[in-house]
């Protein structure tokens, strides 16, 4: 039987996921070393949702993100150098050191600087979709948010508006079962969040968020609908974070059996096994690919470390500032 997905593409998906995993691991290490200011919300375990959703977007398409933005941003094409520099609070960072981890983004590749207010990015995605439509482009928006965000009022208002206006917005809910320490079961009665789409007249799908190929196939269907003017789609991507919620969180609130089950469904392992089983490439070639990615990350750390800090007074730019004492 002929595979639906091209082998080279699977390699591409894997490479991006591997980049995200290793980038996040590097950040974790640097953060624990204490040389990085601020806080971190990491996305290990959720690489397939980011890459699967964004792989087929054009540069001109948009993406909105959350307090957990690194995977989304790397998958949308924000450079590793500029992201790493931002983490080090350097002037060469993607937000010139003004944003920090939670506001990572680069509008030049369609990555709307991330919004760290839970649910806060969802109405913004509606506006971006509205703009794409009003400007008569066929560009689309992928709007990421977590399971926790679906209980914000902003979620309700936004899905309804996107539905009535047939906007090219794809709502991508990364259901990793937790909002901070709170299990989704404790705060939501329905089992599948996707069915909320029905309340707005939005078509929905439930997707295995740890299988990048499945995510990508669902994304392609949703992108197609958005581009041809058929409107919005709600995708619930079932996944799990391997990291803590933020900083050094030991996840004492998580059931160990649940953790084990999910950790066994690792998105990278699933994809790698697929590649090797289908003999898309050899293990040796795959490792060469991985080596290239690791070098890219090491170079980014060097770049970030050797970059200059902003000047204190830079704090008064990029905003209307009347002057003050």
């Amino acid at each position, binding site marked *: 039987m002929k595979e639906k997905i091209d082998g080279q593409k699977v390699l591409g998906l894997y490479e991006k996921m591997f980049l995200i995993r290793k980038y996040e691991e590097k950040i974790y290490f640097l953060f624990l070393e204490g040389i990085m*200011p*601020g*806080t971190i919300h990491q996305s290990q375990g959720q690489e397939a949702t980011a890459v699967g959703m964004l792989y087929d977007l054009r540069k001109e398409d948009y993406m909105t993100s959350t307090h957990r933005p690194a995977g989304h941003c790397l998958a949308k094409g924000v450079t590793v150098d500029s992201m790493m520099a*931002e983490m080090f*609070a*350097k002037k060469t960072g993607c*937000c010139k*050191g*003004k*944003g*920090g*981890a*939670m*506001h990572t983004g680069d509008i030049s590749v369609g990555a709307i600087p991330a*919004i*760290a*207010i*839970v*649910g*806060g990015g969802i109405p913004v995605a509606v506006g971006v979709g509205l703009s794409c439509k009003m400007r008569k482009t066929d560009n689309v928006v992928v709007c990421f948010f977590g399971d*926790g*965000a679906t*209980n*914000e*009022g*902003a979620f309700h208002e936004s899905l309804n508006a996107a539905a009535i206006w047939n906007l090219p917005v794809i709502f991508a809910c990364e259901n990793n079962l937790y*909002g*901070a*320490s*709170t299990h989704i079961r*404790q*705060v*939501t009665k329905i089992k599948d969040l996707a069915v909320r789409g029905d309340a707005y007249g939005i078509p929905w799908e439930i997707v295995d968020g740890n299988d990048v190929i499945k995510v990508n196939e669902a994304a392609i269907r949703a992108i197609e609908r958005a581009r041809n003017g058929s409107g919005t789609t709600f995708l619930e991507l079932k996944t799990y974070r391997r990291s803590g919620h933020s*900083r*050094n*969180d*030991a*996840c*004492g*609130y*998580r059931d160990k059996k649940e953790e084990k089950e999910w950790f066994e469904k690792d998105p990278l392992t699933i994809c790698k096994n697929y590649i090797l089983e289908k003999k898309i490439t050899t293990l040796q070639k795959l490792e060469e690919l991985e080596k290239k990615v690791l070098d890219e990350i090491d170079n980014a750390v060097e770049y970030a470390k050797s970059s200059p*800090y*902003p*000047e*204190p*007074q*830079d*704090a*008064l730019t990029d*905003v209307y*500032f*009347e002057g*003050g*004492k």
Partner: protein
Amino acid sequence: MSIAEALREAIKEEMRRDERVFCLGEDIDVEGGFGGAFTVTLGLSKEFGHERILDTPISEIMIAGAAVGAAMTGMIPIADVQYGDFLFCMMDQMANNAGKMTYMSGGTVKVPMVMRAPVGATTRGAQHAQSLEGFFTHIPGLKVICPSTAYDAKGLLKTAIRDENPVVVFEHKLLYGSKGNRAEKSALSPVGEVPEEEYLIPFGVAAIRREGTDITIVANLLMIYRAMEAAAILEKEGISVEIIDPRTLVPFDYETVINSIKKTSRLMIVEEDTRRNGWGAEVAAQIAEDAIYYLDAPIKRVATYDVPIPFAPVMENFVVPSAQRIAEEARKLMNS
């Protein structure tokens, strides 16, 4: 005792005393969780159960609105947000309902609720950093308090819980003294004596943190500690600083400030909130109206510059008043 512990003690005592008191907020006491973003509510469900310690969905409009509704009908909710910036998500409920309900009803309903919110810049970027006192002191119908020591935290929170008006409590992230993996990197840890026996601190009574004769500094929360640092520097230069912690912003104890400037003739206000139309502007205006003749120099405000809080520490440290900046402005004030 740390401020986080003192706040927890206050909540515990009031919940034991009055069964109408309950807590609601996100992640406030999930099994194996954090006890709220800064550990204040950690472990409370053991004693009071999850009927009275309610872990909510991430739904700030509901949290604030449910607090209003419950307060109007016989309960005393203590609600919280994980970071003060999220108060903006619930602004309609706070401003239009909490602040106005008693008035609109001709005094027939009361809204005895408490909303707790951590403020202050801690290198997390602009959406987790703001000090919001100014927004809330501007809303008629709300009381606003800002405890900066463990003793005050306990005594003021107890008073807030017993007040029949909605009270917003601003707490500073760097002053909590939170422990374990919720500890803050550059935190001060102002542990202080808290008596065994019960006490309440009335609103509208400032505390004089340091006595002096040359300049009066009015500051709140973290800025109290920065001002103390500045005062120590200035003392070596022969400048004697008096420091007043208003402790509550609404109501505000003008009397203590006026008595102080009668002595010093110079007034500086230091706040971490941005400068334009902040609570410091109100204090300056009020003193100008009522007591300008006691002053020998213009009133000086030192506040965060009117920009969002930047992430990079070099920039964050620049926009938020430092002890050095306070000292420098005090020297200028002495010469004016």
